[in-house]
């Protein structure tokens, strides 16, 4: 069942990639296996846990639910691209400071969901933060430290 491969052009974290992919490849597999950007995680493959949250164009998406070919021509931000020139993003600093990452598996997706919020709403309320990360499951922290970290990052940025 050799499906015909398609060429796509995507800009990931500011870098342009031209690659041939199978039409069945998810954007998450493309990032993780083709580009070796393993920061985005797979927790369920069904769009329920948010561990693969990335920013695609102007949308926050679960990369496991998007096909790589759908991203053709678009800009993508992943966890690997949010610190600039070795300087951590305020969210990364705040997550470290507040103990908002324990096992750390949900952390990249959680930070991307939080970044998507702060890019659009630089000073969110606590309730808005809770809403913004409601698609990202965490089994370690109880969420309190994550909400605190996002509010701290909003103040510091």
């Amino acid at each position, binding site marked *: 069942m050799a499906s015909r491969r398609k060429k796509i052009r995507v800009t990931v974290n500011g870098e342009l990639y031209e690659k041939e992919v199978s039409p069945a490849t998810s954007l998450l597999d493309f990032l*993780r296996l083709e580009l*070796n950007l393993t920061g985005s995680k797979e*927790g*369920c*493959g*069904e769009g329920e846990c948010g561990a693969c949250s990335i920013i695609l164009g102007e949308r926050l998406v679960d990369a496991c639910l998007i096909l790589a070919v759908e991203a053709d021509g678009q800009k993508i931000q992943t966890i690997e691209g949010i610190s600039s020139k070795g300087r951590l993003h305020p969210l990364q600093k705040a*997550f470290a400071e507040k103990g908002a990452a324990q096992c*750390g598996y949900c952390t990249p997706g959680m930070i991307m969901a939080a970044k998507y919020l702060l890019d659009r709403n630089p000073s969110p309320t606590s309730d808005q933060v809770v809403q913004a990360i409601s698609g990202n499951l965490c089994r370690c922290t109880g*969420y309190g430290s994550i909400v605190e970290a996002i509010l701290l990052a909003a103040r510091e940025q």
Partner: protein
Amino acid sequence: MKVVGQAHSRVEILEKVTGQSVFGADVRLPTSFLFGAVLRSPHGHARIKRLDTRKAERVPGVKAVVTAQDFPPVRYGRFIWDQEYLARTKVRYVGDLVAAVAAVDENTARRALDLIEVDYEVLPSVTDALEALRPDAPFIHEEYEQYKAAAMAVGRKGNICFHKETVVGDVESAFREADRVFEHRFHIPMVHQTYIEPHTVLARVDATGKVTVWVPTQAQFFLRSSLAEIFQLPFIKVRVIPTEIGGGFGGKMLPTVEPAAVALARKGGMPVQIVMSRAEDFQTANPRHPCYARYKTGVKLDGTLVARDVELVLGTGAYCGNGLVICVRAEMLAIGPYRIPNVKIDLSAVYTNHADCGPYRAPAGPQLAFASESQIDLIARELGLDPVEMRLKNLIEDGDETPASGGPLSDVHGKETLRRAAELAQWGTGSRQKNRGRGVALGYWLVGGMASSAGVKLNEDGTVTVMTGIIDLSGTVTSLGQIAAEVLGVDLADVHVRTADSDFAPHSTISAGSQGLRSMGTATKLAAEEVKKQILQVAADKLEADSSDLVLEGKRVFVRGSIEKGLSLGQVAMLSMTHKRGPIVSVQSTPPFPNQPAFSAHVVDLEVDPDTGKLTLLRYVASQDVGTAINPLSVAGQVQGAILQGLGQAMSEACVFANGKMLNPTFLDYKIFSSLDAPKIEVHLVERASEAGPFGAKGIGEPSLIPAPAAIANAIYDAVGVRICELPLTPERIFGALQQQNKSR
């Protein structure tokens, strides 16, 4: 203390927040690797009549197909050797492993699985533990008498893989003499650990036959021993390299897909990665034991407990797995942390046709506390007593023991822990509001500790490296660094501590049972103290001083009172290396630890919507007895996380079965708490330095999960007067109970 007791970010935190951490599925090798997938039984119980893999083998891109024929003919196990890794003649649950395929990509591997032909003779199956006890129940292990079993596996018969009766005093006489006797039955269904990272492995077999696996495991030395047993290899031929682990909660200690990947890598001649799907993980990866409990309790009118008769039936699943650890725990926890002179505990673990159950954070804890603490609450209300006061009246103290506690207990802070939660929650105050209620429950846990060893070395520049094989789940590794830093008078930033693999790490305990820090921290402290002794000896010679006059502080060693007369740690290290004893290094061991009690108390305020049964948590207050908090940031994180997991088990989580199959193996249908569900949790740490932990630390990871289900159930009763004895306390169950209440009025 300068480093111990301070809040520190975890040492690996920057890798985590930047996405650099390498979890199980992130491992990459210089050579390419194959993708593996396993064929699992679609039946709960069946005989394999025919297995034909020829079509699968012919699929282009398939590099290896393995069946039981590719494994040594041995059964493995931890307590009962009742499991063949791939089924030879019989499958015993939906998901039992039958065969595995490795191919150039995952789709090809999965397509090949579909071409494996298996003829099954389907047998009657049973997933309910009480049904499995009936004389006409399907017999799950006909050959059980031939199995090798550990001495602790007592009372095996038919589907019963463990049965033990514990008797203290005379319960029957005590019931006759009691003022009141209460008897209730409880049912706690299976729940799953639900770490966000599924089980994953990458396996390689080299030209010498040496097996290397990269695995997110909580117990690398357990896994090494399981793989050595399954493949009949000496331990030096098995190397487990632990990756960063995306949550475990007890669920990542027993082998799942690792042996399949090893067999495929061996046969296919290339490394093989297997990543379990979420559904596979839910259906097959050692969930928490479902439990039936009957509690009969005799009391005096003043609330004094005089007798407790507890009957427990745990469904252990298709294989015993780690089941007997949970049985031992159940015996310890059954009656709760109370002084009760007459006790009977009848405890069975029963084979059933679902996945073998394993340890899950505080194994047996929440099941038994839900039953025990619900009943204590019920009794208090029946007798017109305050539920907090009734608990205080009966709680154990220093010098008391409970069944299977292993002797008199010390460091017992149950009363203080309960009082603190009650005070913080202003227990006994506030006016009654319709449909609002308040509940209290107490969690009791005994933390032991397995043997461990740790190494500490002083590097040539005066920095320190801690060598350990403990897996970092809860921040343990950071705390080990703090302990070494404290002993050696350096900053945490001067210490490198990360988990080494099974070939290179000193033998380390598992990251489970709240005992990692107690055990590894003690070994690390001993090793650091030995290194300190060596430093002082070398410095004493050079400085021509007595080592007892030397001070080790601020990365220097100097003569007390004259700070300028000293050496940097780097100078000491180099001096020792070139002129004295050689490199400064020590590896130290600790034997197993006796049990130590740990308590957690929860007080919850909630509101019940009588039209829907929906709960709103208004306030959640928790206290936990933690000894010295080595790293308060980690401790607070553990307590908060444990409570939320407990609330999931209380209010929404359950594995639902029909015809032997789990019906809800997705995050959509198996509902763990999201940020929208999480209440704000107020945590108070009761810090009383323990006599038997490094710098006074106690085990902290598990206790706060335990009381949550009972606290919610007790608050529901307080709010609307219905007593629900089955988890989870979902809106539909609460609504149903309210309907019943209306009918019977």
